[in-house]
């Protein structure tokens, strides 16, 4: 079984063109004992400058390799520089706990760096230690940073408790991020989320705003819960069209 790190290294090297020697030299430096955080900072800074920012554009076979190496890993929308940054972080041998290094990088990252850091979540060691860092990302005002966590990323499905999961779904609706690309959307549906979503729909109706249809499949499985049933009946009595989504 090829590891995600080996896959990244193969994909990026194949796409690095004339910068391949630079890339391999840098990765060797980062992996060597005694590698410094300054070397990591410089690599992260130079990655887009040396490798460019093109889409990684993985083939169907490469995407299948990714899913085999880490179930749920979907680097289909990764960029070359972003992938290199994740690879650099996976290659770096520091003395500090991984979450400390991650925090230090995240705190001073530009938007593209932050997106790359969060897209790498399913690949990092000690995933549970990143609880606070992930929370900071979800709280970000930068929609693409939020989406780096929420979209095509198995980390939330695998590591979020119900409260954090539900609030991620709700925030996605609030900021106009699609629900479709959220990994595990159906598996993690729960009655508390259904209750929150129905209440949210009521608030939207009251304000004369449209309700996104994509929330109803998350309510449907719990339509017979008394509290939710009462809300749905009331909505139907008011002439709201929700039947087709809940059945």
């Amino acid at each position: 079984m090829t590891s995600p790190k080996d896959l990244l290294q193969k994909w990026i090297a194949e796409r690095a063109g004339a910068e391949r020697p630079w890339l391999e030299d840098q990765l060797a430096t980062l992996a060597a004992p005694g590698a410094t955080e300054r070397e990591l900072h410089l690599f992260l800074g130079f990655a887009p400058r040396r490798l460019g920012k093109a889409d990684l554009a993985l083939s169907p076979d490469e995407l299948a390799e990714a899913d085999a190496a880490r179930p749920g890993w979907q680097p289909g929308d990764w960029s070359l520089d972003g992938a290199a940054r994740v690879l650099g972080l996976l290659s770096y041998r520091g003395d500090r706990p991984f979450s400390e290094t991650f925090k230090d990088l995240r705190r001073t990252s530009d938007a593209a760096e932050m997106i790359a850091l969060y897209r790498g979540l399913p690949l990092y060691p000690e995933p549970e230690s990143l609880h606070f860092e992930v929370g900071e990302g979800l709280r970000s005002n930068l929609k693409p940073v939020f989406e780096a966590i929420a979209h095509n990323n198995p980390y939330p499905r695998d590591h979020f408790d119900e409260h954090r999961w539900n609030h991620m779904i709700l925030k996605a609706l609030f900021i106009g991020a699609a629900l479709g690309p959220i990994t595990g959307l159906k598996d993690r549906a729960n009655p508390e989320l259904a209750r929150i979503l129905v209440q949210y729909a009521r608030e939207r109706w009251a304000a004369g705003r449209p309700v996104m249809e994509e929330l109803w499949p998350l309510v449907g499985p719990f339509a017979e819960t008394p509290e939710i049933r009462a809300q749905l009946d009331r909505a139907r009595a008011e002439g709201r069209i929700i039947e087709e989504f809940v059945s």
Partner: protein
Amino acid sequence: MMLIDPHAHMISRTTDDYEAMAAAGVVALIEPAFWLGQPRTFVGTYVDYLSTIVGWERFRAGQFGIRHYCTIGLNSKEANNEELAEGVMEWLPRFALKEGVVAIGEIGYDEQTALEDKYFRLQLTLAKEIDLPVMVHTPHRDKKRGTSLSMDVCEEMGLDPSMVVIDHNNEETVGEVLDRGYWAGFSIYPSTKMGNARMVELLKQYGSERIIVDSACDWGISDCLGVAKTAQLALQSGVSEEVVRAVCYGNALAAYGQSGQMKESDWLSPPAIDQRTLYEGNSILRGGREPVIEEPGTQRRKGLTIE
């Protein structure tokens, strides 16, 4: 006409300003690191400020179809707090390589003290080391001497004048700055810096070579439409379109484009990856038209001239 405002402290401005700038034809702006009006007393607040201008503010501008770039530096006022200055200097190399950083700046002199001189030189050394342009803030007080001194020190530290923008010029300083081969920035800023009627006279006298117009809008009484209003006034006063385009767009792009971080294609044909991440795009590019001063709110109903 597409415009660039190469000196705008957007952290101090509202979304109304972004809308007005976009409507007036501003496609890109540069936000120099500066003094916030309140001195910072912890290195950490300075670090978070730098993170803001490379992160959130860049994203915020993108929502209005404006490309946002910034300059990274320790400003002259805060260079006088040695403990803070030492701490900030440690962090600058980490920020100077961030996406969209087009220069080290704004740096230079305020009171022309020994500490200001020390940190100005250290930052010029950094700029030279990583091959970035420099944005020099010239002092409000004793400006003429401070401007000459700034250029003397740039040359002493081995910088090529073509990599240095000397900003906040006036009638008294512009001659020497241009003669010595530097870019000359003019901040259209009511009552303290340069008015746009005076700016038009300078354009008639000096032409467009290496002259850059900016608004320097910040937390003070300033106008984020300074560049647009100057462009409009210049065109109305018979200055050629070619000259106006150079001083309100082309020269800033040429000077700061030397960073490799700012290209016309950034706003003319942004790559898909940018549309997915930071930039909403500008659906109406205003090529070949005079800048339009639209008035989103009644508070903008004021004259064309800034004096």
